Every structure is written in C-alpha cells, then in structure tokens.
C-alpha cells in the first residue's frame, strides 16, 4: 500500500512540472515586458531592471533558474514592489496574505464536511420527508447561486441592516470577523456534500448486501454504522478532492466581498500592476495546493476501499 502511495505522489510531479512550465512560458512568451508604460525609464534604468529580473537572459536559462528558485522554496521577487521577495508578501509574519485564505478554506472544510454529511445522511434516511426535500432544494439553490451573490446579500441583511456582524475587514482574525465569510462559504459548499451523501446513503441502503444484513436479523443501528457507513462515505470523499480547488477560489472571491487581506487582494493588485512574478507565484501556489489536496483525498479513499488496498 505504501508503494501505491509513493507511486501516486510521484505521478503528480510531472503534472505539477507541466503546470509550472505552462504558466512560466505563457508569461514569458507574451510580448512586452512588465516595465512598459510604468513611468518614463531611462534606457540604463530599464537595462538594469531587466538584468535584475534576469529578463536579459535566454529564456531557457530563466526557466531553469526559476525552477531552481522554486526548489529552494522561493517564488522570486515582486515586479511591483521592487526588491521585495514574493514570499514575504504571500506569507507575511502577521498572519495575513496566504494564511488568511488558508484559514478560511480550512475552517470551511472543517465545518462544511461534517455538517453536510450529517444533514445528507439524515435526509437520505428519511427520504421524501420535508427535511429531505429541503436538503435537495437547497442544493439546487446554493449550487446555482454563487457566493458573490449570497455574500453581499448576507452582508446586507446581517451586517448593514441588523448590525449583528461587521460588514468586512479582518480585525485580528477574531470570531466576529470570521463568522460571515465562513458562513457564506459553508452555505455554498455543504449543500453539495449533503446532496451527495444523501444519494449515496439511498443507493447503499438499496444494495443487495444491506438486504443480506437485514436478512441476518441485524438491528438497524448495526446495519447503519457497521455495514452502510463505509460505502456511503466513499463517494463523498472522492467529491472533496476537486471541491477543495473550488473552496480555494470561493475563499478568494469571499475575501473580495469582505475586504479580507488574503490572496484575493494580492491577486487583484498583481493583476492591476502587472506583477507577473506575483501572478505566477499565486497560480502555482494554488495549483500545488490543489494537487496536494487531491493526493490526500486519493490516499484516504485508497485506505478505505479494500478493493484498491491490494
């Protein structure tokens, strides 16, 4: 089994490399350089800037040097804030930047997953009850309606009108400032988790092996918690892998709505200022996270499914 895990991790490395290369070459093959039209630069100033950012080197050399940077854990230097390493902007000590986005994403997962599973399980066990219908329709609703609509609506109702929570800002990452953003995100993703859990429980309970369990006279609780739980959970787990990339993006969007100092702000600034290095760094960082999370989910799935364990 360890062999399979190692194999799984190794397989992702070419994918990651391909992504890094794609992003790098896309950025560096586009005509124009990041210092155009900023302010009038003397030719010497421009030349020295280009040299400082290695832009005067042949592209292959730049590529290899970039990979070398990445292996040493550095994303290079910002093109807007000259001289400032990107790592210090992405991962500042004061828990801003990337840590904000990561915190939002993790809190969302930690709440949405158990919440969604429990609701979905109850709905599946009481099919066609009013609760079940509620779960199904809220799935349709929250899947169709994006966070950029629910977010401002919640701010309007809970923050501006009822004044229960601050309308935005991070404060010092305290509960009051976290509540609304996390609420919006949890509402965006737990319905899907609940819906898949529900469908999965219904399928499992209709299966032949559950029929056998009943035929053996096993009490309902035993059937649910010994026979049904694993096959019911597996589809939900495989859902979580791709969902994490969605939560990451959702977190970034939510940061915009609530003006949180996370990756979202860094991204828009970088886009406006044409800070290529920063955009590359964020894209690659997002991809790394997605791939890592997918690996974790795959390994978890593998642990639970005996057919694959071999």
């Amino acid at each position, binding site marked *: 089994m360890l062999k399979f895990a190692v194999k799984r991790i190794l397989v992702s490395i070419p*994918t*990651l490399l*391909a*992504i890094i290369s*794609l*992003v790098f070459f*896309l*950025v560096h093959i*586009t005509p124009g350089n990041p210092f155009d039209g900023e302010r009038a630069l003397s030719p010497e100033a421009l030349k020295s800037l280009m040299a400082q950012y290695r832009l005067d080197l042949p592209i292959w050399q730049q590529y290899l040097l970039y990979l070398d940077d990445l292996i040493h854990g550095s994303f290079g230097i910002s093109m807007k804030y000259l001289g400032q390493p990107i790592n210090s902007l992405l991962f500042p000590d004061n828990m801003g930047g990337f840590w904000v986005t990561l915190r939002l994403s993790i809190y969302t997962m930690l709440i949405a997953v158990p919440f969604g599973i429990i609701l979905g399980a109850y709905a599946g066990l009481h099919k066609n009850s009013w609760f079940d219908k509620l779960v199904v329709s809220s799935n*349709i*609703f929250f*899947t*169709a*309606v*994006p966070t*950029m*609509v629910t*977010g*401002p*609506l919640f*701010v*309007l109702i809970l*923050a*501006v009108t009822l004044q229960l929570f601050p*309308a935005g800002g991070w404060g010092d990452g305290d509960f009051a400032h976290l509540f609304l953003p996390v609420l919006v995100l949890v509402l965006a993703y737990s319905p899907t988790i609940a819906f898949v859990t529900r469908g999965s429980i219904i399928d499992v309970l209709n299966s032949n092996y559950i029929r056998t369990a009943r035929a053996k006279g096993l009490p309902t609780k035993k059937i649910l918690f010994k026979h049904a739980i694993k096959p019911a959970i597996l589809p939900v787990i495989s859902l979580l892998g791709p969902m994490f*990339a969605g939560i*990451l*993006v959702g977190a*970034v*969007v939510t940061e*915009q*709505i609530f003006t949180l100092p996370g990756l*979202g702000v860094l*991204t*828009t600034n*970088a*886009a*406006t200022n*044409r800070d*290529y290095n920063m*955009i*590359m760094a*964020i*894209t690659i960082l*997002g*991809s790394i996270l*997605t*791939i890592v999370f997918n690996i974790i989910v795959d390994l978890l799935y593998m642990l639970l499914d005996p057919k694959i364990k071999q």
Partner: protein
Amino acid sequence: MFVKAKNLNLDTPKTKGFWLSVFSRLARNKLAMTSGCIIVVLTLLCIVVPMFSSVAYDKTDWGQIMQSPSAAHWFGTDSLGRDLFVRCFIGGRITFEIAFAAAFVVLLVGIFYGAIAGYVGGKLDTIMMRIVDVLYGIPFLFFCILLITLFGNSMALSFVAIAAISWLDMSRIVRGQTLSIKHKEFVEAAMISGVSNFKIITRHVIPNLLGIVIVYAALTVPNMIVMSAVLSFFGLGVTEPMTSWGLLISDGAQNMQAWWLLLSPATLMVITLLSFAFLANGLRDALDPR
C-alpha cells in the same frame, strides 16, 4: 450470406420516436417549461429594453444620483445618476452574450476534443487526457487572471479566458460517453461489417452524444455567467461605462446603503441561474427517466 455494408440499416436506438418521447416528457415538466420561458423572456428583455429605453445606459445625471426606485427610475439610479433599470438589462445583454458565446465555444471544443479522444483511444487518448489533467490542476480564477493580466483587460479576452478553462469538463464527459457508446454492440457490429468511421461517428456516436451534451449545455451557460460575474468582481473583463451583472452586483456590494443597487441585478441573476438549473434538471429527467 453477407449483405453489403451500405445496405445494412443499423438503426441506432435513438429513433425519431425517442426524441418525440423526450420532448413530450419535457413538456410535461411544468417547472422546466416555466424556467425555459423565463429564460426566453429575460433574453428578449435584455435585447429590447436597452433598444427602446428613453434613457441611455451610460447617461449620467448629476441631479439624480443614488435615487431609490421611483416612477421615473423603476430600479433607481446609481452613484452617477444613471438609470439602473436600463443598466440591468444592458448588463444582462452583455452577460448573456459572453455566456452564450463562451458556452458555444466550450461545446464545440469540448465535444470535438472528447469525441476524438474517446473514439480513437489508445495513445492519443492518453496524451489528450493528460493535457486535460494538467489544466485541471490550475484553479480557474487564477488562470483567468493570469491570462487577462498578460493580454490586457477586455471583454473579448475575458470570454476567451473563461472558455479556455471550461471546455475541460465537457471534454471529459464527452469522452466518457463516447467510450461507452463505442463499446455497445451495435457499434461493434457496424465496425465489423466495414461501415466507415465517418458514418459510424455521424450515424451512431453523435446522436447518442446529443442527450448528454444538451444537458451539459444547459449547465454550462449558467457557469459562464457566474465566471464572468466573478471576473467582473475582480475588476476584470467588462469595463465602465459598459456594464454586466457582475459589475452591477460588485457596485451594489460596495454601496450597501443603497440597497436597490444590489437587489435588482442580484435578483435577475439568481432568477436566471435557477431557471437554467431547473431546465437542466428537467432535460436530464426527460432524457433518462428512472
């Protein structure tokens, strides 16, 4: 005794009767039909309202800034005194244009890519799907932002960026469906009897793809709407004075005291998205009743 290949009439299960029954099932689904009508009505409004409005969408009126809804301005006005009613529908027009155009491209690329990968199979399939896997690893927002940063901000580019990310899902689904069709007995029979690949694709593969493609088309359009709205939220894509629902919602979010600025475009967008969702559900039920 063998019959010549071109005289064989290998009717696929998708006969005319099949499509008739699909349509009648759909017609009986009141929710789906209502949603379809809503979409048509909204589209018409988006075309007609800006055309016939007495007020232009970009006409500023400093004497009328931030007015709540009234007889003169049904949806109120914004911070530049522009009429929100007209802006909502011109925004809708832009949103629909981007969404339908992108969806069309996504469908085209996705179907061709997926069908070829699925039908040809082998090494080509493996390579094509590896490419999809790689692109899948990049969170869409970051990639769109990357593209827009590089190539400049414009409406056309935002549509290209959105389409460039979204064809992946469609191609995966089409490939899967193609694979399962390819292994059905009637296709294998056609292959053995020497029917040309082109005929097989057009007579057997494509009609069987239509079902799933229709459902996913109905799901793709709202995705495009959301993505273009999200981009607008980040200030990318459509720029002032032109507007889209995303921009309007973004503005509304920043001016919460003027609640009408948020409510109108948000409601329009929600209605549109829900209608597409119900329509897609209805299409799926009509094509595969179980």
